[in-house]
């Protein structure tokens, strides 16, 4: 009898799907079973959420069954994870089922948690308070925006880290362009409220994106850490007792990893799994990895990070199970298109050590994508990415972008902010 080993992947989103599909090709089916667990069979193209409120997609265009994204030979179990039992190398499901594993990959991502801010889930939720990081939220917001007749629109971030950290800025830019196109820009006051000291985390990008807010007359309320929402007064109240009133609030709720991570004793204060930032091996364990947004990596929570990380992880994993050292080192590489409105977008490309810089990508001098400056080509890159996502990225086909960030094509501005 041949010994069977099992790789168990928790989460069938971007990271979990790519891991399962890539390793299915590399692990002998006679010796390795690959099982993915998710609570539903709905794989959503999350980058599309941003465009939904502006009528840019139909909701059904963004959704496909998870099962169909998984390669033949990958088993999908639908169920809710109760907890991981690392000492028993098993996962307990909420329905009482148990799944034993030899190796575990936690890829359950991060989730917006409106319940974590007092007053957010009150009577104003989905009436004048909206999120757009869920399909329901983005669809509800589309209607609210259509009906919005002017007043103060506040785009707000509760705390970092958040999934797709540029999305709230993009939302602000797109909203501004949308109101201009509708001839009602003069009736709308736009405010961007963030717990960060500026528009973005890193100085050069923060200066560039900050000046884009200024050009669009979107006022920036920085260092704003919300304590609660007074839903009767329709006001955000910060810990240092600043108040921002709103007619329409588009908020990014606190993002947290899955609750079972905390129940399993595997999480930090936000339920993210502490991992070695180069190998993604969970700290204190030899057979548990966390990939994508579920890990506590000090880089963006973004699909691009999951994709680049899996490239490194795949080779490392094959070495690891063969008892060899993991020599690949993930560098935190991320890139994100940033919609600027009016059919233009920026591209940013960075890693643990290098902040987003101006330049060209992926070919130095040629691009075609321009880094940290708006162009129509970048916008079309973002639009085209949806096809690539379903047909190349998820199946784990090679995409001609190096996993590691390169300095070629980037230049350091002579004067910093």
């Amino acid at each position: 009898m041949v010994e069977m080993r099992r790789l168990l992947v928790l989460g069938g989103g971007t990271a979990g799907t790519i891991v399962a599909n890539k390793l299915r090709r590399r692990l002998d089916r006679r010796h390795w079973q690959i099982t993915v667990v998710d609570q539903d069979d709905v794989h959503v193209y999350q980058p599309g959420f941003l465009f939904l409120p502006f009528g840019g997609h139909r909701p059904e265009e963004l959704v496909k069954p998870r099962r169909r994204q998984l390669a033949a030979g990958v088993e999908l179990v639908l169920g809710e994870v109760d907890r991981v039992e690392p000492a028993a190398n098993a996962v307990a499901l909420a329905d009482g089922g148990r799944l034993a594993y030899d190796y575990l990959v936690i890829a359950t991502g991060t989730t917006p948690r409106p319940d974590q801010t007092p007053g957010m889930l009150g009577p104003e939720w989905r009436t004048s308070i909206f999120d757009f990081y869920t399909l329901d939220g983005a669809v509800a917001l589309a209607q609210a925006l259509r009906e919005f007749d002017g007043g103060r629109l506040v785009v707000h971030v509760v705390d970092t880290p958040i999934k797709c950290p540029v999305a709230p800025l993009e939302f602000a830019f797109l909203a501004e362009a949308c109101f201009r196109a509708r001839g009602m820009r003069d009736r709308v006051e736009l405010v961007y409220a963030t717990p960060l000291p500026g528009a973005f985390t890193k100085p050069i990008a923060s200066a560039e994106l900050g000046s884009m807010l200024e050009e669009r007359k979107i006022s920036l309320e920085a260092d704003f850490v919300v304590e609660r929402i007074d839903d009767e007064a329709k006001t955000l109240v910060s810990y240092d007792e600043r108040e921002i009133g709103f007619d329409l609030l588009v908020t990014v709720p606190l993002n947290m990893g899955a609750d079972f991570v905390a129940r399993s004793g595997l999480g930090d204060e936000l339920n993210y799994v502490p991992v070695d930032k180069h190998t993604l091996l969970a700290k204190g364990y030899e057979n548990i990895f966390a990939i994508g947004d579920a890990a506590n990596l000090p880089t963006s929570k973004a699909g691009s990070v999951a994709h680049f990380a899996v490239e490194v992880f795949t080779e490392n994993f094959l070495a690891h199970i063969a008892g060899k050292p993991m020599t690949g080192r993930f560098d935190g590489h991320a890139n994100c298109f940033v919609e600027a409105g009016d059919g233009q977008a920026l591209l940013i490309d960075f890693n643990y050590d290098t902040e987003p810089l101006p330049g060209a990508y992926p070919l130095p001098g040629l691009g075609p994508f321009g880094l940290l400056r708006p162009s129509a080509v970048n916008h079309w890159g973002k639009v085209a990415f949806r096809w690539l996502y379903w047909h190349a990225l998820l199946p784990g086909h090679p995409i001609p972008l190096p996993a590691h960030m390169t300095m070629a094509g980037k230049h350091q501005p002579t004067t910093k902010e």
Partner: protein
Amino acid sequence: MPVTTIGTTHVHVDAEGFLTDYDEWDEQLGAELAARIGIQMTEAHWTAIRFLRTDYPEQGETATLRRVSTLADIPIKELFALFPKKPAKKMAYIAGLPKPRGCV
């Protein structure tokens, strides 16, 4: 890396005055750093600062506001009262740790 004198001690700092060498710090220095930004240290201040000092070598980075609040069991509201306006940055400064990086 610039060297500056705080009280009678020579320490290495970055461009914004944050200490760059974990081991150059002690509590007396912390109190002097606090005084420079107008904070008179009390036991409540020290609870937060000591947590940051213990957490940093284990984590390799400066704790966020939420992490201090959750793990040292101090409400965020109180951290804002103790270290007004920019508590995360001020705590890091007093604790002799790098400025907490916004996770991109």
